[in-house]
């Protein structure tokens, strides 16, 4: 068909099924566009239990509320457990004065959270979907990010953590699929964090809650149930502003965060098998402030880099990384830094399989990098 000069067989991801009432046909996406790679928990963290991502987040919130009397959790529908069950059982355990619903009022939720944090409470605000964070954009960018700076450190809202479900989920369309990290990474004063699975979600969320700066924690919603692994039972944190090399390699550096890390792990295996190319996969984890050192060291080693994210290509966070890499690693580069990202369109509904930076596009980009010279 016209319009795309490269097409991929993503139709295979859509299946039709006949309902039990007979005759009714509906199209449901049964396959995710990636395979989840469970992580191995660090041995020194001791006893583990199998948890999916909403359970590990629930666990982190439970630990935060249990260890800090000033901690409060609030947002839309959190009392009954939340739309994704992240706050299940927490109101029963800690009471309605600490875990409570707010009305539908994102600007109010974040402003209120800033105030609570400034008054000395560990405020954990939930925004029901990252797509709805925009009424609170002013509060985050102009108030939360700048409170410490404008008051000469006399005031701050460092005890604020904002959590929101993030990213493509298979059927989310325009307003349940967005990845808005780039808007916030552009604002000094905020920390932006995205976990790739349950182990990271628990450790990184606890770090955000403990961190004395306002943090936004984006939770890849497609991983809430799909991602399950052995998660350490105890309290542990994963440091912010530290990237993790999830797979060692020598030929190509692949940088991503959240769901896309699993796409990249799959592509790395495919590249090894089909092309004999060894890929290094880096999970950025903290988008801002990001760990430039780790990614620069990797790119200096491989000479070939690609950044992958679901957000649209233009002005996505990959643009910042690409600019930095070409600046710092220019003489080491064997090919221009590549970005594989969403299209420059609103996040589409039926076109989601075409929109996402899937493993086929990523593999083609590996080939392009390797064939450049």
């Amino acid at each position, binding site marked *: 068909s016209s*319009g795309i000069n490269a097409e991929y067989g993503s139709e295979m991801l859509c299946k039709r099924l006949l309902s039990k009432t007979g005759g009714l046909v509906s199209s449901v996406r049964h396959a995710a566009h990636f395979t989840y790679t469970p992580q191995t928990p660090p041995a020194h963290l001791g006893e583990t239990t199998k948890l999916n991502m909403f359970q590990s987040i629930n666990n982190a919130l439970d630990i935060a509320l249990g260890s800090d009397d000033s901690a409060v959790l609030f947002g839309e*529908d959190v009392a009954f457990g939340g739309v994704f069950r992240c706050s299940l059982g927490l109101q029963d355990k800690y009471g309605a004065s600490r875990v409570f619903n707010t*009305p539908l009022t994102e600007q109010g939720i974040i402003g209120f959270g800033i105030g609570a944090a400034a008054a000395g409470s560990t405020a954990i605000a939930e925004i029901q979907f990252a797509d709805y964070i925009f*009424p609170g954009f002013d509060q985050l960018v102009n108030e939360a990010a700048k409170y410490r700076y404008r008051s000469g450190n006399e005031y701050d809202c460092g005890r604020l953590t904002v959590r929101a479900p993030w990213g493509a989920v298979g059927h989310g369309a325009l307003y349940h699929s967005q990845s808005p990290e780039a808007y916030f990474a552009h604002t000094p004063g905020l920390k932006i964090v995205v976990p790739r699975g349950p182990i990271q979600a628990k450790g990184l969320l606890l770090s955000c809650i403990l961190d004395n700066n306002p943090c936004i924690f984006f939770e890849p919603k497609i991983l809430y149930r799909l991602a399950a692994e052995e998660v350490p039972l105890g309290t542990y944190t994963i440091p912010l502003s530290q990237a993790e090399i999830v797979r060692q390699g020598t030929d190509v550096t692949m940088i991503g965060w959240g769901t896309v890390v699993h796409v990249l792990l799959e592509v790395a295996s495919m590249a090894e098998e089909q092309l004999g190319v060894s890929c290094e996969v880096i999970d950025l984890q903290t988008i801002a402030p990001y760990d430039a050192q780790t990614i620069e060291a990797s790119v200096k080693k491989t000479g070939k880099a690609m950044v992958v994210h679901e957000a649209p290509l233009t002005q996505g966070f990959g643009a910042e990384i690409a600019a930095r890499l070409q600046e710092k690693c220019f003489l080491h580069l064997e090919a221009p830094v590549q970005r594989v990202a969403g299209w420059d369109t609103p996040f589409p509904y039926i076109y989601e399989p075409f929109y996402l930076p899937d493993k086929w596009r990523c593999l083609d980009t590996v080939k392009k990098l390797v064939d450049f010279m």
Partner: protein
Amino acid sequence: MHMYTDTLFGGNGIVGAQVPVGAGIAFGHKYKGDGKVCIALYGDGAANQGQVFEAYNLAALFKVPCLFTCENNHYGMGTSDVRAAANPLYYTRGDAVPGIKMDGMNILAVREFTKAVTDWMRAGNGPVVAEVETYRYYGHSMSDPGTSYRTRDEVQEVRKTKDPITMVRSMMVEGELATEAELKELDGECRKIVDDATKFARESPELDTHEMFNTIYTDMDGSRIRGSDSMTYGIHSP
């Protein structure tokens, strides 16, 4: 939320976002002097969005013919109206904007009230806030079973005693405006319209992929839309 007609300006990403838009559309009607009014619909959940109050204020200051209509079905997804609003009398939330409450389950009441209020607005009296009391039988969305925050008995009670269509049926049969048989035939006709529409939708060919790049802008036809990587691009076309 996903339908558009020449008089229905469609749905919005975040509930409540349509309310200031409605005030603006009403301003347009007043400016053009076309005698039309705008009905801006939102739910009891959205009624607590800040921008709704900004819209009330703007509409009152500029005296625009906007009927702000809160469809109060008593639940904002999983939170009941009385737990989301310090003042759950949604028709009073317009403050300086006069408010009126309608029984949304009574079709005739809604029709008569709306006629009277829109006539009043057309006479240049400015905006009105209407609260239309109704109910939601199912959950808010596919991931909401609708029973974790209310009892099944409550839902069935409303269905039995207050259903608007059942009410109209009884009115018409008792008032000898129609027989049961005629109403049953009407039911059948309606079912056929829905079945035909469903069939049409299912049998229609899927949209071509080039539609993904259309209607992002209005004057960018022929230009390239950056793609998922440096090798792919789309062409913006009407």
